[in-house]
Each structure stands twice: as structure tokens, then as C-alpha cells.
């Protein structure tokens, strides 16, 4: 299975595994390359954020009142939100904090929350999908009903509502409030609503694989159920799981930004793209640059992830068309 002759004239015939073929297809996809470079660039920016504090000689939290219009003390001096050689993306209205540094540090917050939530949702989703699909019967019924109920929740509204309540409850148990609790709460809430989508896909795949001959063969020689699920079925699922993960990341990024934008996420002074957009709302008409920078960053990041996800899907499943 999976041996395909190379069609190049004169070259020796070479066997290629399906994953190798998918990788080759991905490497030849120009869109995939550009979007992967874009995503990599934003990751690099996030990782290198501390280096920039050293280059610009300021921190993302430092106020710069000298960059603000002295008459009112709110709007940045200069065009385009105060863009200058010192402040590459301008400064924040009212505080004068450096927007470039807040953008770079914001990428860290947004990406780490979105990726953690995706990871957690994937682990839960894959496990539940495997169990639900493999065991069937009552287990399956209970788990699919649970998914149905979770999908009936108005997710944004519920996530928005649960954050202060959870925070209050945790406060009652002596946990300090602030970002140290808000960020874990956000990750849990986001993955709570993310896993059913993954579980449904995995479950469907498991149901069709469960009856295949190779599983039957393993079962007949007395393999344990754990072996069947994790050693026989799971290795056949990495392609759909990879596609789901790739397409899940942009959703998590936008949900995280939306929650923070609505005030239920990361709070000042920690920087975050959603928080920057929220902070820009009172100033959008006098300083549109400050709105534009995090908004455009979010657009590029989500677009790149979406395109990359599409390319991964096309590479893994050559029959699918855009």
C-alpha cells in the first residue's frame, strides 16, 4: 500500500509513503509556502519581543507622556498615531505606551492562549471521539448527547458570562484575581466549546475503521482494547486530526480576541491583540492607526492560518478540491 512509481523519466523508481507524498504536495504549494512563512514570521515576532525592548530602550508597559499632545494629553503627536523612528507603530493614546512592543507582546498572549486551547480541545476531542466511536452503545449515546448539549450553548455569550462568575467563585476559594486566573479560565472555556467539533470528526472516522480487516485481525489474535484503539486505529487518524487542528487554530485565535474585546479576557497591563482593539475603541475616530494595527495583524494571522489549513487538507486528501 502506498507505493507509487515516480514518473520522472530516467530516474530510478522510488517508493514513497503517503505522508511523504502529502509533504511533497505541500512543499510545491505556493500558497502554503507564503502562509507558512507569514505564520512563522509572526511566531518569530512573538518570540523575539524581549529583544525589541532592548533595541527600542523601553518596555510595553512604560508610559511616554512626552509623545502625547500636551493640550489634552490624550492623542499622540505626529501623523499616523505618532509613528516615528523611536515608536515604529506609534504610541497608545492617553498613555503613550509603545504600540509596536504591545503588538509583539500581544502576539505572545494571543498565540499562547489560542494554541493551548487548541491543544486541550484536541486532546479531549480525540479521546472522546475514540471512546465514543470504538465502544458504541450506551457510552456513545451519552457522549454524543453531551456534545449535542454543548453545541446548543450560545458559546460566546456563555463564555462571556462564565468568566466573571468563575473568577468570583475562585476568589471565594482564595485564588487571586487577575490575568493569572483569567488566562487559564479562558483556555478552559475556549476548549470546552472546541472539543465537540473534533470529537465528532474522530468518532465518524473510528466508526468506519472499527470494522476494517486489520482491526479484526488484531482483535482475533487477542489484542487488548487499549491496543486496538491506540495502536491500530489512532495511527490511521493523524491526517483528519491534523486538518482539524490546522483549521481550529484560527477559530481559537478569533474567539480569544473576541472574548478579550468584549472585556471577558486578558486585562491590562498584559498586552493582547483583542485587548488593544478594545482599548482603541474610544479613540478610533481620532487615531484610527491604533485600531488598524492590531486588527490588521489579526486579519493577516487568521488568513495565513486559514490558507495553511486549506493547503494541509488539500495535500492530505488529493481528491478534495477548493
Amino acid at each position: 500500500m502506498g507505493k507509487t512509481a515516480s514518473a520522472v523519466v530516467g530516474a530510478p523508481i522510488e517508493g514513497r509513503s503517503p505522508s511523504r507524498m502529502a509533504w511533497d504536495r505541500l512543499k510545491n504549494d505556493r500558497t502554503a509556502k507564503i502562509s507558512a512563512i507569514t505564520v512563522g514570521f509572526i511566531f518569530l515576532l512573538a518570540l523575539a519581543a524581549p529583544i525589541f525592548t532592548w533595541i527600542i530602550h523601553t518596555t510595553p508597559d512604560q508610559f511616554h507622556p512626552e509623545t502625547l499632545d500636551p493640550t489634552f494629553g490624550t492623542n499622540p503627536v505626529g501623523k499616523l498615531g505618532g509613528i516615528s523612528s523611536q515608536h515604529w507603530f506609534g504610541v497608545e493614546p492617553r498613555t503613550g505606551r509603545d504600540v509596536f512592543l504591545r503588538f509583539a507582546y500581544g502576539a505572545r498572549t494571543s498565540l499562547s492562549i489560542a494554541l493551548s486551547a487548541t491543544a486541550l480541545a484536541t486532546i479531549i476531542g480525540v479521546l472522546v471521539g475514540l471512546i465514543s466511536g470504538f465502544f458504541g452503545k450506551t457510552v456513545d449515546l451519552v457522549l454524543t448527547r453531551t456534545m449535542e448539549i454543548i453545541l446548543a450553548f450560545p458559546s460566546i455569550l456563555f463564555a462571556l458570562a462564565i468568566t466573571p462568575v468563575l473568577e468570583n467563585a475562585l476568589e471565594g476559594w482564595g485564588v487571586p484575581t487577575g490575568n493569572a486566573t483569567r488566562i487559564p479560565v479562558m483556555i478552559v472555556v475556549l476548549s470546552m466549546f472546541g472539543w465537540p467539533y473534533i470529537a465528532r470528526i474522530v468518532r465518524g472516522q473510528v466508526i468506519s475503521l472499527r470494522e476494517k480487516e486489520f482491526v479484526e485481525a488484531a482483535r482475533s489474535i487477542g489484542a487488548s482494547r487499549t491496543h486496538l484503539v491506540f495502536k491500530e486505529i489512532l495511527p490511521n487518524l493523524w491526517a483528519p486530526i491534523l486538518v482539524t487542528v490546522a483549521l481550529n487554530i484560527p477559530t481559537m485565535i478569533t474567539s480569544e480576541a473576541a472574548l478579550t474585546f468584549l472585556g471577558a479576557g486578558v486585562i491590562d497591563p498584559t498586552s493582547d491583540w483583542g485587548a488593544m482593539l478594545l482599548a482603541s475603541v474610544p479613540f478610533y475616530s481620532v487615531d484610527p492607526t491604533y485600531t488598524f494595527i492590531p486588527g490588521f495583524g489579526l486579519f493577516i494571522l487568521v488568513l495565513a492560518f486559514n490558507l495553511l489549513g486549506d493547503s494541509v487538507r488539500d495535500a492530505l486528501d488529493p481528491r478534495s478540491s477548493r
Partner: protein
Amino acid sequence: MLKYTLRRIVSGTLVLGIVSAIVFSIFYILPSDPARLACGKSCTPDLVARIQVALELDQSLPVQYGRFIKGIFVGRTYLANTDAARECGAPCLGYSYQTDQPVTLLLMDRLPATLSIAVGASILWLLIGLSSGILSALRRGTWIDRTSQGFALAAASLQIYFVGLILQFIFVDKLAWLPMPGYTSPFDYPLDWAKQMVLPWVTLAFLLSAIYSRLTRSGMIETMGEDFVRTARAKGLSSRDINIKHVLRAAMTPIVTVFGLDLGSLLGGAVITEYVFNIPGLGKLATEAVTNLDLPVVTGTVLFAAFFIITANIVVDLLYSVLDPKVRLS
């Protein structure tokens, strides 16, 4: 058909019951002091004590929940037999002590604005999404197809809170073509209503039409290769009839699913849109209630939104059988 419809309604009601039980337990049990939260930030000790009685915190959770559910059907009186008695008619979804009004009344007050956004925007995005998708499918591979699909791809990655602010900056602040978005009754001032709604409609439609355009295009292209389309062509039907009656109809199934879910969740409150454009709808009510920790209103809005989502799901399932002759309901 009737049997299936009834079964779906029963299971939908069951799901709603479970959702309400979960929401109720979370919002009334989890907080360290629900009465204090329900009372709000500017609250007197006297009021806290009264709410403590009104919320019946001395009762067990099932009793509290049971009374809440009973209130939905027959209404209830909070703080009965005291001078502070509050009447809450059926369907009673709780009582907001911060605003001193029944939650149902608050919801009904905000529903028209959300309804205006959802209905207007959905008509617009269906029009844009379907027509650009059909055009793309029929002119596959041409510049029309590439442009419209490129737009769709970009629009699908944009955010309401970003596009909304940028459009508002251009059309309200700079060009002054439109007034600040808001809500006035369409029955009193239809023109003002439409002018104030244009931005939310366009923003939502622009972002949401993308997925419809892509779904229409891929669905139609896929169906065009099917045998029944070839048969229709062989029968001598005009290509217009084939494309609309056969191809588009078959491509509608996934579109109906997505449309139902989108409309259902929008009706429960276009949270982000209302927040960005400052429109007094259900979503804005919810965000305000969350900020003030007005728990009865929070519970009410979440349940109301869940109701819309579940109803939309049932309607979508029923529409399947109408649209796709292959689907037989069992």
C-alpha cells in the same frame, strides 16, 4: 413527517431543559455569594438581605430550579407576602434586582433591535453569498471567479470588531454619509431605522457572505458532474432550468445548515456587532449584565439564546426533507 417533527421538538425541549439546569446551577451555585452578585456593585445591605430571601438561597438547588422552571410556565411572585413583592408574569425568566424589572420584560425590550440586525443582515448576506457563488460556479476559472473567491477568502478571515470600526470611521466620521448606528423603531421612523442599521447589516453581511459564496460554488460545481444533471440536459432542459432547479437545489443543503446555525445564534444576540455599534439589542443586554454581574439577566439571556439555537437546529432538520429528496425522515 408529523411524528418526526414531534420527536425533534421533544428532544429539543429536553436539551433546553438540560442546558437550563446547567446554566442555572453554574450561575446560582458557583458564586460565593449570589445575592451579593445579583444585587450589583452599588448595593445596600438591606437590599442584599431582601435578595437573599427572594433568591430562596435557603432552599435546596432542585427546589430553586423547580420554582424557576415553574415560573416560566405560570409566572411567580418574588418576595411574596412582604411590602417589596415583585410580580413576574409568565414566562418568568427571573427578576433583575439591579434594574427592578422582570428579566422577560428586559429581553422583550431588546429583542426588536437584535431582530432588525439579524433579519436585515441575513437577507443581505444570502443575496451576496448566493449570487457571487452561483456566478463563480458558472464562470469557473475566469477572473470573475478568482476575484469573488479571493474576496470570500479574505472576508472569512476578517473580524466584525475590526471591519465595523473601520467602516464606521470611513462612512460616519470622515464622509458623514451615515448617522451613528443605533436603533429607532422601524414603525415610527422607518428611514432613520434603515440608515442606522446599514452599517451593522453591511459589516455582518460582508463577513458572513464569504462562507455562503464558497459553499454555493463548491456545491454547485460538485453537483454539475452528477448523473441526474446529465439526464436533465439530455432531456433538453434549458441550462437556466438545470442550474436553478436541479444544481442549485442540490447545493442548498449545506447552505441551509449553516444559515440556520448563523441565524439562530444571531437571534440570541449579535453580541459583538451590538457591542461595536452600540446597539441596544440582546447581546448588548448580555454584555451589560455581565459587566454589572446582574446574574438573573445573564441567565435569562443565555437561556434565550440557547432556545434560538435549538429551534434553528430543528427547523434546519425539517427543511432538509423538503430540499433534498434523498433524505427520508425516520
